């Protein structure tokens, strides 16, 4: 299975943070290719810069390492168009772009977002969070 990992899943996996056993099994046993949108890096860097990730090292020290063996999935014009056109009330632009990337490139978006769970139009697998 080729998956687009959302920001929280990428972060939790890299830092060994708690996740549902079902999510861990999926990541370690079912995933053949890991893909990540660079906007996930922006989300984490943004939170860190504003002090919302206390205890997390400077992203300059770990992001490059964490991205090894991920396929980068930057948004294309078509993806951005679709991200704007989703007929959803959900206004998180990063979520809308991740969903559009998954749809355009036939990747399963693996996430823990209960809002995304209720939306359709893209391949996804939802796992509840543990914390």
């Amino acid at each position, binding site marked *: 299975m080729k998956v687009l990992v959302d920001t*929280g899943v990428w972060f939790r996996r890299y830092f060994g*943070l708690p996740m549902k056993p079902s999510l861990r099994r999926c990541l370690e046993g079912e995933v053949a290719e890991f893909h990540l949108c660079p906007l996930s890096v922006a989300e*984490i860097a*943004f939170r860190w810069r504003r002090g919302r990730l206390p*205890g997390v090292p400077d992203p300059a020290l770990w992001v490059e*390492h964490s991205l090894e063996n991920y396929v980068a999935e930057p948004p294309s014009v078509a993806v951005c168009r679709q991200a704007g056109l989703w007929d959803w*009330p959900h206004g998180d*632009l990063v979520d809308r772009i991740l969903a559009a990337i998954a749809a355009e490139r036939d990747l399963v978006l693996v996430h823990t977002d*209960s809002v995304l769970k209720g939306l359709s139009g893209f391949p996804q697998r939802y796992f509840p969070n543990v914390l």
Partner: protein
Amino acid sequence: MWDYPTVILIADKKRRVVLPRPAEPGDAYECVATGDRLILLRLQPVTAGRPPVAEIPLKPTVLKGLDLDAPAFTPLADEGLG
């Protein structure tokens, strides 16, 4: 072929069979059905090319009060589509 001669596998009431060696417990197979033939292809474990993890994991308390699923950036205006 000499090491692993042809064997006959008989399915039980639940259509289960026991595979001979070199099959091992936990092996995963792709089963391809073509007419009367069932071809089992052993799947290689997915180990190569996996993303790394941090040498020093973070304490779970890092997540206290943090919702990584919430928008990092201010969400777009929530006005209706008109």
